[in-house]
């Protein structure tokens, strides 16, 4: 079976750190399903037996941002919601990527109205804009493959100087603890 069959006993192989981390990172992208509206149902459909996002190593949808490296913003972001989206994005550890799933997330789409943010790139860095209202699950899988390609081009040193996100933790005795 696979790699193990070729490696006998105490074998080893050589590679660069970058190549290894890229390979590991891009095949186990853990998405943060920021499901807001209609697109969220299609995002769910991409996890169902027919489309099966598990084939690309991304079936582990985590609802806590601290375990994720890809945020799929699925659905119309209103001004009221934008603060929440940004807050969750800030809690995700680096390196992180964002897919703007669907027309309203990318540009406001059909909702040219007062409460809707006309494109989430006004407050978030977006890596992939995904067309469709909502995009079919196949299209979401395509976006995931594009993200994997993009991850494949990153180097470990790209993230060396990034500061840690600022966290405030309440201790059991009521004191506040801050990491920087």
């Amino acid at each position, binding site marked *: 079976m696979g790699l193990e069959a070729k490696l006998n006993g105490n074998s080893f192989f050589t590679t660069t750190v970058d190549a290894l981390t890229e390979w590991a990172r891009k095949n186990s992208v853990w998405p943060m399903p920021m*499901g807001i509206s209609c697109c969220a149902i299609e995002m769910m459909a991409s996890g169902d037996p027919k489309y099966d996002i598990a084939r690309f190593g991304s079936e582990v949808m985590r609802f806590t941002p601290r375990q994720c490296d890809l945020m799929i913003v699925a659905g119309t972001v209103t001004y009221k919601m934008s603060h929440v989206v940004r807050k*969750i994005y800030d809690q995700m550890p680096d390196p992180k990527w964002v897919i703007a799933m669907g027309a309203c997330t990318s540009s406001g789409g059909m909702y040219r109205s007062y409460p809707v943010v006309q494109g989430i790139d006004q407050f978030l860095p977006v890596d992939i804009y995904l067309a469709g209202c909502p995009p*079919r699950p196949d299209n979401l899988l395509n976006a995931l493959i594009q993200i994997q390609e993009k991850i494949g081009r990153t180097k470990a040193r790209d993230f060396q100087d990034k500061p840690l996100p600022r966290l405030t933790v*309440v201790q059991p005795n009521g004191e506040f603890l801050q990491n920087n």
Partner: protein
Amino acid sequence: MEKLTKDDVHPKILEALLADSNITLEDALENEMILNMGPQHPATHGVLRLLLRLDGETVMGCVPELGYLHRGYEKLAENMNYYEFIPHTDRLDYLSPMSNNVAYALAVEKLVGIEAPPRAQYIRMIISELARVASHLVAIGSLAMDVGALTVFLWTLREREKILDIWDILCGARFTNSYTRIGGVANDAQPEALAKVKWFIDQYLPNLDECERLINTNRIFIERLDGVGVISADDAIDIGLTGPSLRGSGVEFDLRRAQPYLFYNEIDFKVVTYPDGDSLARYFVRADETRESIKIIRQALEKMPQGETLLNQPKKVLPKKTEIYSRMEELIHDFMIVNFGINPEPGEIYHAVESSKGELGFYLVSKGDGKPWKCKIRSPSFVNLQSVPQLVKGHMVSDVVAILGSLDPVMGEADK
């Protein structure tokens, strides 16, 4: 845990949360705890935010906070003509877009005073029942997932995908369909689509039984729902519940029976009710309702006549595309309707249908222009959500999830 600040919760919301207790904001954290649930939470079915006041794990008070998905539908409707709003109705209750289309088309037809041909009405009936099945499947699956049974969700989604495939054949879109037109449907149902509907209803019931075998005798599932979130029939009517949530309290109220639209008066079906009024009863109602829907679809397929699927009424109904391209008169009518609208005579109507969540109503006011003067959407999820504070009181935090799942709100239509 991060400390709650004024940016997170507006003082007015906290005030409402603490209204019926004698505690103040300063000592709230000592005796009782305020827990924020949502808007980003896997079990709130979208972007509902609940603020819970807890004593230990018991819920003492609850304030739902809506509006995270408020997209301004009613304002949009006032700024576009009647036809342009059809795609917007898809995205209201995005679990059953087809029945929203039908509801809106029926409302506008009532305002204009026209009626679609019989074949179109039968097609509408079939698609709204299919939409109901699709929506209830998600409701059942996600309720089971919320209380910890993950397999059911995958199985019900598998069934739902088959319905989406039917829609794919029918109108070319699998999710947001916009298939209904004012005065009919976009195109006749193809033989392949109808054959697929037949195939689906034949194989659906055994598959539903299979799903039910997984959970109906599962002790964890039953005990998580039995006796949780009880609401009596009188309270349910008073708080305005409709749809499966009301019928779970034993009230036999179904608009398909009470005020028949389309051809529901010619169809034999049962209005499913369960007397208990708890989350389990609401689940049973949903499961049994899909069986009734299958019955309705079977009868509708048998009774469906041949004929036109779009009304021939050039001043009010958009002509078919092929005719626009080949005939002068149709081209002019198309131009007039697209640019100036269909100008219904002044007046106001309210038309409601029984959608999968409850009573979906459209209140349209016309001043004789091409655009509606006012379009109010009476969305069932919005009203059903209002019962949440009443239902969760005295229960545990984990029951909140089960209760929300059994109400099956869709935030797209609750927030509008």
